[in-house]
């Protein structure tokens, strides 16, 4: 359904020195910089999958989405979506896909969303009956019936995002690209959007590609995870395998009755994180060593409470990012 082969994209920009003199210099001479946003990316996504593209800012996730949808043309390599070259922008292709961007709106700002939906109905030649059924279904699921006739600019971010999702589904696309659909939303709104996406996928089996900064999005929505660093694919696999990527490790959390000394030599060789004024300690440790370490700590220090959990995906990502930047952006 989506295939890429050695897909790459470079952008050119220029360096400008600060201030007025920098502006004048750049008017006559520009030091051009080429940034490789995506490098030799290979990916294959099957029909009906929900795939999460995960990575830090500037990793190239959105650039990939823009190449998948045909908004930008790759510098080299191949990309095929639903059997089409997206950058040809054929009418058939554009009718089969949808894009939602958390930071850009496709709705007309000064008029109610319903007017934008009518326009989308005409764009995609959706029959009247089917259109009204879909609007009814989607607005009920998203609980936005009362918002359809209010000017978009008067709505909250969360409300607008729900309507953005509706706008992308009016023509019942075969593939939906969701670029950070929950960005900037409060926890409740994020949860609502996630639930809606999951329900919609269950009902229609639509293929979805999602980028997000929020691990909760990926954990809740995606069966498969693709991690991108500096435009390169770092990990591609099942989400449950991802947490094992740093080895079979666990996080051991201790709450102490009093603050401890973090410079205590006992902690020197351990991967620790202190919080609550040194009264709380998280230790990342191989699973096999956990019982022995727990026993020592319980005997040696005034432990009030303790717990162990598998490495949260958020922590795995953070460690990977730290490791990646320590190695000067080289592939891990």
């Amino acid at each position: 359904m989506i295939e890429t082969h050695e897909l790459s994209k470079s952008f050119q920009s220029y360096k400008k020195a600060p201030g007025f003199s920098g502006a004048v210099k750049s008017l006559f001479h520009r030091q051009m910089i080429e940034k490789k946003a995506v490098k030799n990316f290979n990916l294959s996504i099957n029909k009906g999958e929900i795939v999460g593209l995960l990575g830090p800012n500037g990793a190239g996730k959105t650039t990939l989405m823009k190449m998948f949808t045909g908004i930008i043309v790759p510098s080299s390599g191949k990309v095929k979506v639903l059997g089409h070259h997206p950058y040809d922008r054929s009418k058939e292709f554009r009718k089969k896909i949808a894009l939602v961007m958390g930071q850009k709106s496709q709705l007309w700002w000064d008029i109610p969303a319903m007017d934008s939906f009518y326009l989308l109905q005409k764009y995609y030649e959706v029959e009247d009956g089917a259109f009204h059924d879909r609007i009814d279904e989607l607005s009920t699921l998203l609980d936005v019936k009362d918002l359809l006739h209010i000017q978009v600019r008067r709505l909250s971010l969360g409300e607008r995002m729900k309507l953005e999702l509706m706008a992308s589904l009016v023509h019942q696309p075969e593939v939906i690209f969701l670029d950070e659909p929950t960005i900037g939303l409060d926890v409740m709104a994020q949860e609502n959007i996630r639930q809606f996406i999951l329900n919609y996928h269950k009902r229609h089996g639509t293929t979805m590609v999602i980028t997000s900064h929020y691990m909760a999005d990926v954990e809740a929505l995606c069966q498969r995870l693709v991690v991108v660093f500096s435009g390169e694919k770092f990990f591609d696999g099942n989400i449950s395998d991802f947490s094992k990527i740093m080895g079979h490790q666990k996080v051991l959390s201790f709450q102490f009755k009093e603050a401890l000394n973090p410079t205590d030599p006992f902690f020197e060789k351990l991967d620790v994180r202190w919080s609550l004024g040194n009264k709380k300690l998280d230790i990342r440790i191989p699973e096999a060593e956990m019982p022995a370490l727990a026993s020592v700590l319980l005997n040696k220090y005034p432990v009030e409470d303790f717990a162990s959990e598998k490495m949260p995906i958020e922590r795995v990502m953070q460690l990977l990012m730290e490791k990646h930047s320590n190695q000067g952006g080289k592939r891990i």
Partner: protein
Amino acid sequence: MNLTSFKSAKNYFAVYRSFINNSASSAMSFRLNFFLFILIDLSFLMVTLGTTDFIFNHISSIGNWNRDQMLFFITFVILVDWAHMFFLSENFWELSILIRTGQVDFIILRPLSPLFTLFFRHVRFACIFNCIPILSVLFYFGSRLHLALWQWPLVFFLAFLSLILMGLIEITTAMAIFWIQEGMGINFLRIQMQNISRWPDFIYKSFWRKIFIFFVPLLLIGSAPIDIIYNKNYKALLPMIAAIIILSFFVQFILARALRQYESSSS
């Protein structure tokens, strides 16, 4: 016309009707601005005609044209300008913002020609009422020039061709915004080009006349149709049609290149 092209044309009309509806809803949601636009356009009509009338209080002709001929010409050009303002103008002003904010992303994703979705998306609805005074003035000076009844459909057909020509010249020019990004310079260039087209060709020296007929065919917008109406010089239709055909291909060529190098703003 086969069934597919008929369906396609129907689709374009349906979308265009929605564009008009949305533009009207949007424009009318700002009531004061809506009425302000009507007043500004009316004052433009009055100032332009008043200035020309004032000049003719002191001279008897400009070139070979008397007061009525000159005022009919100017009103004809204002009619074309009105149609341009109503159907196209807003889109040129918006293009740079759309490109810089990445809103073009959604526009080019729609399953219709990007030329249509980029340049016909907005109409300036507040202009609509001003066609009444413009048409009234046109009919008035037309009657003073004793235009025959059969000539009126020709006047409107020529105004339509002029609009297409003006639109194509401006779309070609505006496409440069895809490379330049900032649209202010290009939009002021467009306004200067409109100023050039608002005067009869005989006021320009031979060199500039050739430039503005053969290179940037601005003088075909007003002067060629009036030549046809006043002098029945139907041969003047040929350069107009030729310019429209050449520019139609050129616009498609430039648009394809513009979209190919469009990088979209990061989000």
